[in-house]
């Protein structure tokens, strides 16, 4: 132990002499950890919120009984089950609007609420019971929900239908975006007297499914907790996406760590040799180095996890908004992370550090006690090094091809991208070396020949930083093209989809009929088109069914991906449906096939006559004839409409409707506003991707800078002879800069095709698997130019300090090289 500690002290003295090297190492590890744990924090936060939403009432893991055919059921069934000794607790859920915000109302029965439910712990339970039963009752909402509604405790907001809520109180355990009220209050607020949406099973141990049928007939269906969490399923791909980017950023960070540790190892070779010669055995050496890595992990990893927290905090609003607008998921806006998250961040830092240091450690183990200190020796001969790189690259390419050929889905998509990036990164030094060799062959002047020859030498030192730069650039191009291509497609699609000038939702179906009757008499209104909706499930997937009337709005504009001629006639005249691209892909549906659709009444079979793009919709969608929707879906919403009006009259018509119908209108919005909202959602969704992308690029810039800075000392040994032969320091500095810029340009040139390949993977594999739609492949040369400029700029700034230092280095310093061991 003592020996190990002394060894450690000797090793650590290195960092005192080379604080720059230490800073790079710590920074690299911290950044890698920060990006990774930041993304993990976002994911954890979102998942916690889903869980909170799903488990607030049941306490998690509980099965529930729901109406067999969807929708609500009579509370009489609850009483019958209880009277038969089946222990269940009733819940009624629904949505109301307060001001412009959608709020979920959860009606619970506090006496039978499961004890394991987070809102029914001993303290809360008493409060809930007492508050629910006295005076006007109570509504419990999470503090953030109150903030979002701009309400303080005690406030009694009104719903859009004019119902007064009970006074609100903050309750941390309440799921975000929801207000918990007494079951009776919920029935009143939601206008569902005597109705329930589910029954939570209180005691799985005593629950006997066989008893259900004699008591409740076929009215209820048992739902396992997993089936219920659509939200988790729907958002899975979103989180996988985030994770992939987080991991990419982590890898780029590890490049820095590897480079920095490699350098430190090399510089410490003399020390290691001396220690071995003094009799320190490999076990002590390894133990000391492991201790050193452990300490680094704690310091840098700790800083990284803190940084990750900051990153997550900064990105959380965007993530929350995009999850809300995309999936209707409510994410808590206060980061609440448990010990597990902190520990896993540290573990990741430790694993990363160990991985980056592994080659150094194995070499230390094999170090012969009496070997000479030969800097660069451990990297092996230059050729051998390049050959190994090329072989590894080829292997990675083969693996990528394998992933493409045999894998499928999101994981395979990311694997292909990862392996292709790895192959490209590995092959980069080989390619650059080839170019430099070519230059050397054609160069005439000695200084030029030295420039190329020395450049080849330098590649091995810079290669890791260059790889990181390449990966960051390619990712930027790849993701940038995908996002830009999506943006263009999305805009065109929105234009085609949003033809009607006004969209509105009536408060109730009866109100809708009033408005409809009135609208037909208005000269300003060319057409009123019902867009009623119903819900169903196909293949277990939640699907919206939307009705369409035969109208030019659709027949002339509604975007279709694939549809034979006569699709509209078929849709309205036959038992026919249009399916969304997502649904078609998910269930492998093709035009001409017959789809069995469970409706509120009987089941209905319809032929698929077309497929339409439905970007941004996590659920599947079916479009059917309006009359058939009315016939087959008793529970169709019957409140949504679009209006065709003279564009110039839009504002006037909206004003008219508002004045005339007031509270009968739940929402009214014009085309421009819908487009703004949709585009907004789009931008938010990719805001996080873009932010991570930019961070990755910054990290790679830091990697380059770190490598150049640490290399600059070693460079002196090479430059000093050239200087001694008469090249000025200024000239040498200019050559240094030129070389770095040339490397960066090479990386950028290489990054463009690699980025395009990545775009293709994202568009053709990842998006299809993650979201269920395939976008057209676009190329954006202007973007390549921007990325190339960024690469050169990053290289320039990274090289600036080392180069200026070189230009100003004193001749004595350069002369000392000749007296040194080097």
């Amino acid at each position, binding site marked *: 132990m003592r020996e190990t500690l002394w060894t450690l002290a000797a090793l650590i003295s290195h960092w005192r002499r080379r604080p720059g090297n230490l800073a790079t190492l710590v920074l690299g590890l911290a950044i890698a950890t920060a990006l990774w744990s930041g993304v993990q924090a976002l994911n954890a936060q979102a998942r916690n919120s889903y869980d909170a939403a799903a488990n607030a009432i049941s306490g998690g893991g509980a099965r529930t009984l729901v109406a067999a055919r969807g929708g609500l059921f009579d509370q009489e069934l609850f009483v019958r089950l209880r*009277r038969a000794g089946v222990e269940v607790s009733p819940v009624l859920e629904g949505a109301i609007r307060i001001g412009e915000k959608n709020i979920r109302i959860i009606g619970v*029965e506090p006496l039978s609420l499961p004890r394991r439910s987070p809102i029914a712990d001993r*303290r809360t339970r008493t409060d809930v019971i007492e508050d629910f039963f006295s005076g006007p009752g109570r509504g419990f909402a999470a503090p953030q929900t109150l903030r979002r509604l701009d309400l303080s405790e005690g406030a009694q907001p009104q719903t859009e239908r004019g119902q007064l809520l009970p006074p609100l109180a903050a309750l941390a355990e309440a799921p975000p975006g929801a207000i918990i009220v007494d079951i009776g209050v919920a029935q009143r607020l939601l206008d569902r007297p005597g109705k329930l949406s589910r029954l939570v099973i209180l005691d799985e141990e005593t629950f006997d499914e066989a008893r259900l049928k004699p008591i409740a007939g076929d009215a209820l269906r048992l739902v396992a907790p997993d089936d219920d969490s659509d939200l988790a399923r729907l958002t899975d791909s979103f989180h996988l996406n985030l994770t992939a980017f987080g991991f990419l950023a982590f890898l780029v960070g590890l490049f820095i760590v590897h480079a920095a540790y490699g350098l430190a190892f090399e510089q410490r070779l003399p020390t290691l040799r001396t220690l071995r010669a003094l009799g320190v055995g490999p076990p002590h050496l390894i133990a000391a180095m492991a201790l050193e890595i452990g300490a680094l992990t704690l310091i840098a990893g700790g800083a990284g996890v803190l940084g990750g927290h900051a990153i997550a905090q900064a990105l959380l609003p965007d993530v929350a908004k995009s999850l809300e607008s995309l999936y209707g998921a409510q994410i808590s806006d206060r980061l609440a992370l448990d010990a597990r998250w902190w520990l896993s961040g540290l573990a990741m830092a430790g694993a990363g550090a160990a991985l980056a240091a592994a080659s150094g450690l194995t070499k230390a183990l094999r170090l012969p006690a009496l070997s000479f200190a030969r800097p660069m020796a451990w990297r092996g001969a230059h050729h051998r090094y390049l050959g190994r790189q090329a072989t590894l690259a080829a292997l990675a390419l083969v693996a990528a091809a394998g992933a493409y050929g045999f894998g499928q889905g999101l994981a395979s998509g990311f694997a292909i991208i990862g392996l292709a990036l790895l192959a490209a990164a590995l092959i980069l030094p080989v390619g650059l070396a080839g170019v430099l060799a070519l230059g050397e062959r054609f160069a005439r002047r000695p200084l030029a020949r030295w420039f190329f020859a020395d450049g080849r030498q330098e590649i091995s030192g810079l290669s890791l930083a260059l790889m990181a730069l390449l990966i960051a650039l390619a990712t930027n191009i790849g993701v940038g093209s995908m996002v830009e291509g999506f943006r263009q497609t999305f805009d065109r699609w929105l234009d085609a989809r949003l033809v009607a000038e006004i969209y509105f939702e009536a408060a109730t179906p009866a109100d809708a009929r009033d408005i409809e009757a009135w609208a037909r008499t208005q000269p300003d209104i060319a057409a009123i088109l019902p867009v009623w909706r119903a819900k169903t499930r196909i293949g277990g997937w939640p699907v919206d069914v939307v009705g369409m009337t035969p109208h030019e709005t659709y027949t002339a504009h509604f975007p279709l991906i694939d549809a034979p001629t006569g699709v509209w006639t078929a849709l309205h005249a036959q038992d026919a449906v249009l399916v969304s691209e997502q649904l078609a892909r998910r269930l492998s549906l093709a035009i001409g096939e017959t789809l069995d659709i469970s409706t509120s009444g009987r089941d209905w079979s319809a032929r698929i006559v077309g497929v339409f793009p439905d970007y941004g919709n996590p659920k599947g969608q079916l479009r059917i004839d309006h009359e058939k929707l009315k016939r087959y879906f008793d529970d169709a919403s019957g409140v949504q409409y679009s209006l065709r009006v003279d564009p110039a009259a839009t504002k006037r018509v909206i004003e008219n409707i508002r004045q005339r119908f007031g509270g009968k209108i739940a929402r009214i919005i014009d085309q421009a506003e819908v487009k703004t909202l949709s585009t907004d959602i789009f931008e938010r969704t990719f805001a996080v991707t873009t932010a991570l992308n930019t961070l990755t690029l910054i990290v790679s810039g830091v990697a380059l800078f770190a490598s150049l800075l640490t290399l600059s000392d070693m460079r002196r040994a090479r430059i000093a002879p050239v200087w001694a032969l008469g090249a000025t320091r200024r000239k040498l500095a200019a050559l240094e800069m030129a070389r770095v810029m040339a490397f960066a340009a090479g990386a950028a040139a290489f990054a463009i095709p690699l980025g395009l390949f990545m775009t293709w993977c994202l568009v053709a594999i990842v998006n299809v698997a993650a979201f269920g739609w395939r976008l057209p492949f676009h190329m954006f040369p202007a973007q390549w130019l921007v990325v190339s400029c960024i690469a050169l700029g990053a290289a320039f700034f990274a090289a600036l300090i080392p180069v200026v230092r070189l230009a100003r280095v004193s001749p004595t310093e350069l002369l000392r090289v000749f007296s040194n061991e080097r």
Partner: protein
Amino acid sequence: MNARSPNSSQERSSAISRRSALLLALSSSGALAQGFGGLGATAPGFAIPRAGTQLAFPRDHGAHPDFRTEWWYVTANLKGDDGAAYGVQWTLFRFALQPNAARAGWDDRNIWMGHAAATSVNEHLFAQKFARGGIGQAGVEATPFRAFIDDWLLETRDDSVDAGIERLRVAASDKSFAYALDLTATGPVVLQGEGGYSRKSEAGQASYYYSQPFFRAEGSLSMSGRKIQVSGRAWMDREWSSQPLSADLKGWDWFSLHLEGGARLMLYRMRSVEAAPFLFGNWIDADGATSILAREDIVLEPLETTRIADRDVPIRWRVKIKNRDVDIETRPLNPRSWMGTDFAYWEGPIRFTGSHSGEGYLEMTGY
């Protein structure tokens, strides 16, 4: 249950039980009173028991929504076909959280609470249930008599529409126990106190209180998977009131005793922080004739305590009724007859020997 009054841990533990639901409603510091909607020290809006009121049956077997609280209470001392002794308890409480609590649907402001227990020498198994009024999950109807909460019930076995409580079925079950007993009255209903008007303190708090102490019980009992045929004696209590009890009430000790020879004895002792205990006793002859015992003739003396649920609970008692030459010592069938429900108390079957022998039930709160 209630955590609002920090110094009320004792009341909390004892807050409710048999006669205690009344005391609870009567008690201004009763935990449940506050926990369930802040019952005040008085009972504005609720009906108040008045001396001289004639109780009428079967009407008064049913619920009294004008009053704040009431309960239906059955205890049975049983003997199994295995020769062992058992005890069974079935209770249904109603609490109105505010006057005019009986309303339609979830707007109803009555809370129903059921307690059930089965006791043997080695085991004391219990369960509780809560339910809202108004939706049909729990309630009591006078004719034909029917009291229920979920699948626990106490109801008439007679077909006639005006059947009272002469022939009842009582049943309850939980994970670890279940029982179903037929109860058959072998004597008349007994009015407690002054014709059913029962005083609870010197200050005059009172309730309406009657009993049916003459049930023959027969049926089956399952405990921890073992099913036993049982028969024996049962006692039913009915009580309702609205008034708060005195503020310094600590708890009470309540005896219902079946004496050899057919007489019954009901005794209780209200323990106060400051005042001397309030004692009350009623001697019931085998034919149902009652005589109120003089307070100074009643002696209740704890002989031995046992540690249970962090409390010292007196489980062995000496009971003396001076002018009746009663001097007995009671022992529990199972000293650990602790009802660890949300409102916890000790309640279980007892046996006694001495000048008289017999069996009965003992309830103790506030320890």
